[in-house]
Each structure stands twice: as C-alpha cells, then as structure tokens.
C-alpha cells in the first residue's frame, strides 16, 4: 500500500502545547511499573540525559514511554544536565570576557615607555626609522651631582630606535638642548643636540640617535640647556 502523501501542515502551537502537557501527565503517572521491570538503573538514566537524542537507543525511549518512574527520573536528570550546560556556557562566556579585559588592562602597561607603535619608515638612507617616545613630564629626575635613583621602574627604549622624542618635564623651556646617554657620570655613549618646541601642550625635544652599538642595560639619559645643570632620567636600553 502506498503511503499517503504527507501534507505540509503541522499542529498549531496551542494544539502542540496542550498535547505535550497531556502526554507529560500520561507518561508521569499512567505506567507505574511497581516491579521496575526492564528499568535501566539511575546511572544509565543520568548518562542518557547528558547525551544528544541522536545517540539515545530506540528501546530506551520505548521503555520511558511505559515506565513512569523512569520517565520522571529521566526528566529530572535531563533538567539537571541542561542546567549544567547553561552554567558552563555562562562560565565560558564570562571567562572569555575576563580574558579580553585582562589583555586590554595589561597591554597599555607593557607599552608605557613607547606612546606610539614604532613607526617603521624607509628613509632616504634606506635605514628604517623607528621613533621611540620618552615621556618625562611626570617622571622624577635627578639633577647634576645627585644619584639618579628612580622611584619607579625605568623607562625603556629599543636599540632599534633612530629617533627619540622626549616629552620634557613640565616647566621646561623651548630652545636648544644637549642630550647624552651616560653609562656612568664620566662616560657617555651618545651625545646629541636638539631643539625643544612646544606642541599640543607638550615640550618636545627630538633627536636622532644610533643605538645599534649600545649594549642593552640601564643608562642615565641626561639633558640640559647649555650652561645649565644636567638632569638625568634612568632609562633602559632594550
């Protein structure tokens, strides 16, 4: 006999809801099975509840339809499994948000001595220009004769830097400056001059440097207007 053709019509939502409620009442109470004949046991019920329906055997489903205690217990385990899945999803999302937040929290700190990403530009001499920014506006410096002991971790610049942009301390004046990188009070590894200019409420002193021959480590960056005392800032060349 040929199959009747299935028409593309389903129950209305209300019909479906009423039917499911009736079905639930039926399965929960109309099959007492007092001897627990054919019951799979609580462990099996728990395992099946955690599985996808595609892996639930048909005979297991058939049993649920004819054993109210198993149906009730399975329904309970299923609700528990769904709750755990929801909690795991929430925890995973929360963990991901926390990780992103931590990444953003720490990322700026790692770049505190370089305000901008190093801009690599091919100059006319075919040497890649790398600009390192040293913000000395709020850092504490030692004056000439004093030990340059920092209160906070030293600022750092990469050895690949070709240009230093120094934001001079608040109150600094425009004009010509001498700049030196000192390994000790009497030993300078770099000497340069530059002109400080005011820009965007910052006093910026820009000098060209070549640190390729400078060994990594801590140095004192000194700067002064001619005939003034040196001011030092401990920096780390990396």
């Amino acid at each position, binding site marked *: 006999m040929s199959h009747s053709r299935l028409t593309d019509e389903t*129950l209305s939502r209300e019909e479906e809801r009423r039917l499911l409620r009736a079905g639930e009442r039926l399965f929960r109470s109309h099959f007492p099975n007092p001897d627990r004949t054919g019951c799979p046991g609580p462990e099996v019920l728990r395992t099946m509840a955690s599985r996808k329906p595609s892996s639930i055997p048909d005979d297991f489903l058939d049993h649920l339809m004819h054993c109210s205690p198993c149906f009730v217990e399975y329904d309970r385990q299923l609700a528990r499994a769904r709750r755990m899945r929801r909690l795991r999803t929430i925890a995973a999302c929360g963990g991901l948000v926390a990780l992103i937040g931590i990444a953003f929290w720490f990322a700026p700190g790692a770049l505190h001595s370089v305000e901008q990403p190093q801009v690599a530009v091919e100059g006319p001499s075919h040497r890649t220009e790398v600009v390192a920014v040293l913000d000395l506006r709020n850092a504490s410096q030692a004056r000439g004769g004093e030990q340059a002991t920092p209160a906070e971790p030293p600022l750092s610049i990469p050895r690949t830097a070709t240009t230093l942009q120094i934001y001079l301390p608040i109150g600094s004046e425009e004009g010509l400056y001498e700049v030196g990188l000192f390994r000790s009070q009497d030993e300078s590894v770099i000497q340069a001059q530059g002109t400080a200019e005011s820009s965007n409420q910052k006093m910026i002193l820009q000098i060209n440097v070549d640190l390729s021959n400078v060994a990594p480590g801590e140095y004192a960056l000194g700067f002064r207007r001619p005939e003034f005392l040196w001011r030092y800032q401990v920096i780390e060349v990396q």
Partner: protein
Amino acid sequence: MGAKTRRLFVLSVLGYSWAEIGRKFGITAHNAEVQFSYGLKKARKRLLGNRPSDRPRSGSEREG
C-alpha cells in the same frame, strides 16, 4: 500511534527541540514536526473515525 510517532512524541514531551529530534531520525526539523503531526492525525482518525476503516495495520504504519 506508530512506533516512530510515539518516539517523536516522547522526545518532544521531554523538551527536545525538533532540530534535535530530526537529527535522531536523520530528517530535518520541519520534516520531524510534519511527520509527528501526520502520525497524530492518523491516530486520531483511527480512534475517532466511525468509518468501517478497521483495516489491518498497513504499510502506512511502517514508520521505520
């Protein structure tokens, strides 16, 4: 109600989505829902119909 329709029904009562139920039977969610509705209507007809249609269970009940 045929065996497949009953299984469709009990899975639906347990709160599985039609998509999950369809995957179990290798059909789409919509197809699962339609097959269930069809099976239900057939069962209802057999229960409530007064026609002399007490035919023996035929191929239409073979719901694999």
